[in-house]
């Protein structure tokens, strides 16, 4: 499972971070960064929620 972030599109709403602060963090640059890339099946539902609820559609989950 791989999370892609389109950094040109993300405007740092932080909805994803609100859902999983251990995975996403909006940095001082106003753009989100991944704190980990190691995901298990247990993370899938949360990551899908983050993709669905990102207001700029900056996230994409592969695999």
């Amino acid at each position, binding site marked *: 499972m791989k999370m892609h972030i389109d950094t040109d599109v993300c405007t*740092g709403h932080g909805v994803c971070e609100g859902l999983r602060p251990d995975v996403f963090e909006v940095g001082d640059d106003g753009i989100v960064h991944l704190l980990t890339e190691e995901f298990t099946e247990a993370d899938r539902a949360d990551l899908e929620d983050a993709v*669905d*609820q990102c*207001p700029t559609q900056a996230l994409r989950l592969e695999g």
Partner: protein
Amino acid sequence: MARLVVVGASLAGLRAVESARRAGFTGAITLLGAEEHLPYDRPPLSKEFLTGDGTPKQFRTEDALRTDLDVDLRLGTPATGLDPEQRVILAGDDPVPYTAAVLATGATARTLPGLPALSGLHTLRTLDDARALRTAIQPGSRVVIVGAGFIGSELACSARRMGAEVTLVEAAHVPFAAAVGDELAPAIAALHTRHGTDLRCGVTVTGIDGDDRVRAVRLGDGSTLPADVAIVGVGAAPAIDWLRGSGVKLDDGVVCDETLQSSAPGVYAAGDVARWFNPLFGETMRLEHWTSAAEQGGLAARNATDPAQATPCTLVPYFWSDLYDSRVQFVGVPTADEVRVVAGGVGEDTLLALYRRDDRLIGALGVEQRRLVMRLRAQIGKRVSWNDALEAVAG
């Protein structure tokens, strides 16, 4: 065979369809949309769609909907009724039977009573509305915007960027009070003043003058504002007329329980049209926010297709608005016992304020505070105490 019928082909409806498939629903899915367009994103319509190159942001291709998600997509096909006894939705010539349904018909722009049909008079809700505005607003146009809520305010910013002369007229003494509370509404209104936008509060509009096209906007004090374009931005009303007489309980929206189920068994609602009981705040609410529509669309479809596992919708409201170069964000609810500014302030570049009810944090407002606001959203969801919230932002 099981059939999920989703009414409304916009954000909530799309998320409903996607989520049902992802949860493993193998029955048929019909998606009915009144507009001819594929699902597209609305927030840009008052922002970069107007100031940019005018390309709509579409969520999915037709092929992705029909093939990947196996959806029976019927655009340009408004639902006209629902029969909870027969379990059918009326649309076009043939009634569509359902075993589960998600109502996601959103909202329509309100207007003022008794306005004549003139060219140059606009509202903004749909892509077609936004296209008409792009053509109407030209450099040097005199644009009068009636209503300084978030959409009216964003329109004011965009129209100025497009080179128009803008006057923003608001009936209340300060705009945004319903959205962010009385105390800090002036802080948001100050963004207009700081950027030199002509905002006139406490002014009612009594009519629009013109022969075939708009000439002027008439105000309560008897004066008139000359105008080439008049835009009415006085909020939105839930799109429920088609459900009148169906027996589905309505009250400024489709009335739902905490799992988003309406009074009709198997019929759920999501997005701007849904009024539901949010257990997290112990109150009934109807939101007109992007993230709520996305979240509720997914949840309503999962609950509708697997009611035995239905879970409550306990979301923390979130909306944002982009005004000039500032991002305004609000999480939670604004009806508070106390509002405390913890960073920045009215008239400054940034602001962070916390909202307290009893001893709980229930809301937060940020202007250019992207990092903190969403952390507070998570805290509100965990019912964090006021003191812990204050410590967290201080630390």
